[in-house]
C-alpha cells in the first residue's frame, strides 16, 4: 500500500538534516550539499504524489489511512502514538510542503551560493520540512504540536540566519527573537486548547476526538473556550491580528526562507489546524465568527499597510498577512474548502513572488528598497515576467489562480450573509491589486534608479527554473477549483468535502443568492482589481506626481500607514515597556537586588560581623592558647570532681 511509504517521506528530510548538519562543514562541494538537501524533499514529493494518485484511484470511503509507527508517550490515561493520518487534507498539505519546498530548495542552491553558512542553511531547511510534515500529517494533537514547535524553531533559526547583519534598529537576531516570542504567545494558546481537548475528550487522537465532539451540542462553553485557545495559536503561527507584527520582521531572513516558511508553508499551519479541527470550530459559532472577523480585519489592515511600504519584501510580507486573513475569513464563514484552496494557490504565487524578489535582490546586491530599483525588466526578463504573472494572480484577475480562490472565499462570505466581511474582503482585493502592481511597476518598469555601480543580470538556471515552474502553477492552479457557476466542477473542494462533512452538517449554512448574484460579485471584484491595477500602473510605471501629491495631501494617513498603524509602538507602550520597566524596577532592582542578593549578602555580612568579634581571641601567641587550655582543663576537672 502506497500510504505506508509516508514514513519515508517524513524521515528523509530528517536524514538530510543530520547529514548536512553533521558533515556539511566537511563536505566541500556546495552542489553535493544542495543535492542532498533538495533530493530528500524531492523524493518526499514523489512519494506524496504516488500516494495521491493511488488515493485518486480508490473510493472515497477508503481514502483515510492511519499509519502507526510506535507508541510515544504513555502515562495514565494519556497515550500518544507516533502515527500519521494520510487523508485528503493531509496529502494536499504534504504535496504543497514537499512540492513548493523542493522548488525552493533548488532555488536556494543558486541563491545561497558562496555563503559561508551554505550547509547550515540546507540543514535548517530540511529540518523545517521534517517538522512541517509532522505538523500536517500528525494524527493527534501532540504530534501536531511537535511539528508546530519544530517549524517555529526553524523559523527562528532561519530568520536569524545572518545573525550578525544589521536589520532596522537591531540585528536579524532581534527579528528572530521577536518572531519566536510572538509564536510562543500563540503556542501558549495552543497548549491550553490541547489541555482542554484532553480534559474534555480524554484523548488527543483526531480520530477519537472529532467523532466524540460531534455528539456535543452546538455552543457548549468548553468547546468555545477550546477553539478560542486553539485560534490564538493559529493567530500566532499564521500572523493574524493581534499577533501579526512578527511576520514583516521575519523578512530579515534570506529570501528563500521568506518564500518557504513565511509565505507558502509555515504560516499556513494555523489555517490547516483550524481546518483540521473543523468539527470543533463548527460547534463554536462564536469562535467561528471571531475567526471570520479577525481574518477580514487582518486582510484589510495588512493590505492598507502594504500600499505604502518601500521594502520589496515588506510589501510581500504584508501581502502574505493579508492573504492569510482571506484564508481565515473563508474558514470563519464555514467555507473550509475555499480557505484551503486559497492556501494552495497562495503557496504558488506568493512563493513565486518572494523568489522573484530574491532574484531582484540578488541582482542588485542586497538592495531591497523599491525606490532604488526600476527599469529592471530588460535586465531580468524571466524574473520580470514571472513576477508579473504572480502579481496578476494575487490581484485576482481571471483565469489566473488567485481569482478563483479569492472569489470563492468572498462569494461564500457574501452568500452566508456576512456582507460586512465581504465588503472588507472586497476592498482588500482592490488594495491588493494596487500594491502588487505598484510593486511590480516600481521594480521592473520606469526609469533605472539604481546606482551606476551595479550591473544587474539574470539569475542562474537553478533560480529561474523554479520561478518558471511556480509561474506556471500560479497561472493554472486555479483550474483545480473552478466554481460550478463558471462551468467547472470545483474539483478541489469536492476532493476535500469528506474532511469537512461533519463540520458542514453541524453548521448547515444556507447560502443565499443564485448564480446571477455570484456573477455580479465576480464582476465587482474583478472590476475593483482592475481599477487598482490601472491606477497603480498609471502612477508608478511612469514618472507621476500623483503619489507624491496624495502623500502630502493626506500626510497624516500616509504616515499612519507608513508606520504600520503604529501597532509596534502600541505593543511597545502597552506590553513591552511596562514589562521591561517592571522587570527592571520591581523584579531586578527590587526583588533580585533587594531580596535575593540582600539575603545572600546579608548572611555573608552577618558571618563577617560575628567573626570580627571572635577573631580578637586569635592572638597568635601560643601561651595564650595554652593558658586557655589549662583553664579549660581545670574547669572540666573541677566540674567532674564536683559532680
Amino acid at each position, binding site marked *: 500500500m502506497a500510504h505506508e511509504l509516508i514514513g519515508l517521506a517524513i524521515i528523509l528530510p530528517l536524514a538530510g538534516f543530520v547529514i548536512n548538519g553533521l558533515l556539511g562543514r566537511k563536505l566541500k562541494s556546495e552542489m553535493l550539499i544542495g543535492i542532498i538537501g533538495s533530493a530528500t524533499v524531492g523524493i518526499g514529493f514523489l512519494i506524496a504524489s504516488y500516494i495521491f494518485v493511488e488515493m485518486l484511484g480508490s473510493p472515497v470511503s477508503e481514502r483515510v489511512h492511519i499509519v502507526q509507527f510506535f507508541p510515544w508517550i504513555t502515562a495514565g490515561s494519556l497515550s500518544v502514538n507516533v502515527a500519521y493520518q494520510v487523508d485528503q487534507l493531509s496529502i494536499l498539505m504534504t504535496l504543497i510542503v514537499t512540492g513548493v519546498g523542493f522548488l525552493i530548495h533548488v532555488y536556494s542552491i543558486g541563491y545561497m551560493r558562496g555563503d559561508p553558512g551554505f550547509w547550515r542553511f540546507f540543514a535548517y531547511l530540511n529540518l523545517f520540512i521534517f517538522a512541517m510534515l509532522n505538523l500536517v500529517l500528525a494524527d493527534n494533537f501532540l504530534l501536531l504540536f511537535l511539528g508546530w514547535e519544530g517549524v517555529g524553531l526553524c523559523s527562528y533559526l532561519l530568520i536569524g540566519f545572518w545573525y550578525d547583519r544589521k536589520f532596522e534598529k537591531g540585528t536579524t537576531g532581534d527579528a528572530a527573537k521577536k518572531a519566536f516570542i510572538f509564536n510562543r504567545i500563540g503556542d501558549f494558546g495552543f497548549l491550553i486548547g490541547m489541555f482542554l481537548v484532553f480534559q474534555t475528550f480524554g484523548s488527543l487522537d483526531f480520530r477519537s476526538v472529532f467523532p466524540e465532539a460531534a455528539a456535543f451540542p452546538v455552543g457548549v462553553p468548553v468547546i468555545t473556550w477550546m477553539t478560542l485557545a486553539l485560534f490564538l495559536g493559529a493567530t500566532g503561527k499564521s500572523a493574524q491580528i493581534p499577533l501579526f507584527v512578527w511576520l514583516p520582521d521575519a523578512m530579515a531572513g534570506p529570501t528563500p526562507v521568506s518564500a518557504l516558511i513565511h509565505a507558502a508553508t509555515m504560516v499556513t499551519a494555523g489555517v490547516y489546524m483550524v481546518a483540521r479541527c473543523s468539527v470543533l470550530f463548527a460547534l463554536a459559532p462564536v469562535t467561528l465568527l471571531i475567526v471570520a472577523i479577525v481574518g477580514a480585519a487582518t486582510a484589510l489592515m495588512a493590505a492598507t499597510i502594504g500600499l505604502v511600504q518601500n521594502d520589496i519584501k515588506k510589501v510581500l510580507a504584508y501581502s502574505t498577512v493579508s492573504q492569510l486573513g482571506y484564508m481565515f475569513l473563508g474558514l470563519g464563514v464555514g467555507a473550509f474548502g475555499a480557505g484551503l484552496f486559497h492556501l494552495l494557490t497562495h503557496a504558488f504565487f506568493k512563493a513565486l513572488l518572494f523568489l522573484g524578489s530574491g532574484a531582484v535582490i540578488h541582482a542588485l546586491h542586497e538592495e531591497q528598497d523599491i525606490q532604488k530599483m526600476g527599469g529592471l525588466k530588460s535586465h531580468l526578463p524571466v524574473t520580470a515576467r514571472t513576477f508579473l504573472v504572480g502579481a496578476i494572480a494575487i490581484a485576482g484577475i481571471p483565469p489566473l489562480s488567485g481569482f478563483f480562490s479569492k472569489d470563492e472565499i468572498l462569494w461564500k462570505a457574501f452568500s452566508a450573509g456576512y456582507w460586512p466581511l465581504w465588503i472588507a474582503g472586497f476592498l482588500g482585493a482592490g488594495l491588493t491589486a494596487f500594491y502588487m502592481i505598484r510593486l511590480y511597476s516600481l521594480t521592473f518598469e520606469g526609469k533605472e534608479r539604481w546606482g551606476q555601480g551595479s550591473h544587474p543580470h539574470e539569475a542562474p538556471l537553478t533560480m529561474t527554473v523554479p520561478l518558471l515552474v511556480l509561474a506556471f502553477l500560479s497561472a493554472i492552479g486555479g483550474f483545480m477549483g473552478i466554481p460550478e457557476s463558471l462551468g467547472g466542477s470545483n474539483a478541489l473542494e469536492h476532493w476535500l468535502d469528506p474532511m469537512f462533512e461533519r463540520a458542514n452538517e453541524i453548521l448547515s449554512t444556507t447560502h443565499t443568492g443564485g448564480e446571477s448574484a455570484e456573477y455580479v460579485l465576480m464582476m465587482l471584484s474583478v472590476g475593483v482589481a482592475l481599477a487598482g491595477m490601472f491606477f497603480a500602473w498609471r502612477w508608478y510605471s511612469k514618472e507621476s506626481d500623483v503619489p507624491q501629491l496624495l502623500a502630502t495631501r493626506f500626510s497624516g494617513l500616509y504616515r499612519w500607514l507608513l508606520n504600520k498603524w503604529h501597532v509596534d509602538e502600541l505593543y511597545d507602550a502597552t506590553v513591552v515597556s511596562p514589562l521591561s520597566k517592571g522587570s527592571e524596577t520591581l523584579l531586578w532592582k527590587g526583588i533580585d537586588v533587594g531580596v535575593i542578593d540582600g539575603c545572600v549578602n546579608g548572611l555573608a555580612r552577618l558571618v563577617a560581623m560575628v567573626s570580627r568579634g571572635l577573631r580578637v581571641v586569635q592572638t597568635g601567641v601560643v601561651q595564650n592558647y*595554652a593558658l586557655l587550655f589549662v583553664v579549660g582543663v581545670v574547669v572540666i576537672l573541677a566540674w567532674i570532681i564536683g559532680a
Partner: protein
Amino acid sequence: MSVPLPYYLCLSALLFTIGAVGVLTRRNAIVVFMCIELMLNSVNLTLIAFSSFLQDMTGQVLVFFVMAVAAAEAAVGLAIVIALFRNKQTVNIDEMNILKW
C-alpha cells in the same frame, strides 16, 4: 619501709604545676620546652608510683612509651626552635605571633 604513695603523688603534682606555670609564664622557647618535659616526666612519676603501688607492670610499660615519644618530640621541638632562631634571631615566643588573622 618504702615511701608511701601520697608522697610520690604530691611530688608529681608539684613538678607538674611548676612545669605548667613555666609553660605559661616563661618567654624563652627553650625554657618553655624544658617545662613541657618537666610536665611529661611528672606524669611518668605518677605512672611509676601507681605501677609499684598496684603491682601492675602496665604503668611502667606506658612510661617507656612516653619517654620514647618525648625523645622524638624533643628532637622535633629543638629543630623547630633552631629553625625559628635562624629566621628571627630570637627565641622569645612573644615575638612568634604571626599565626593569626
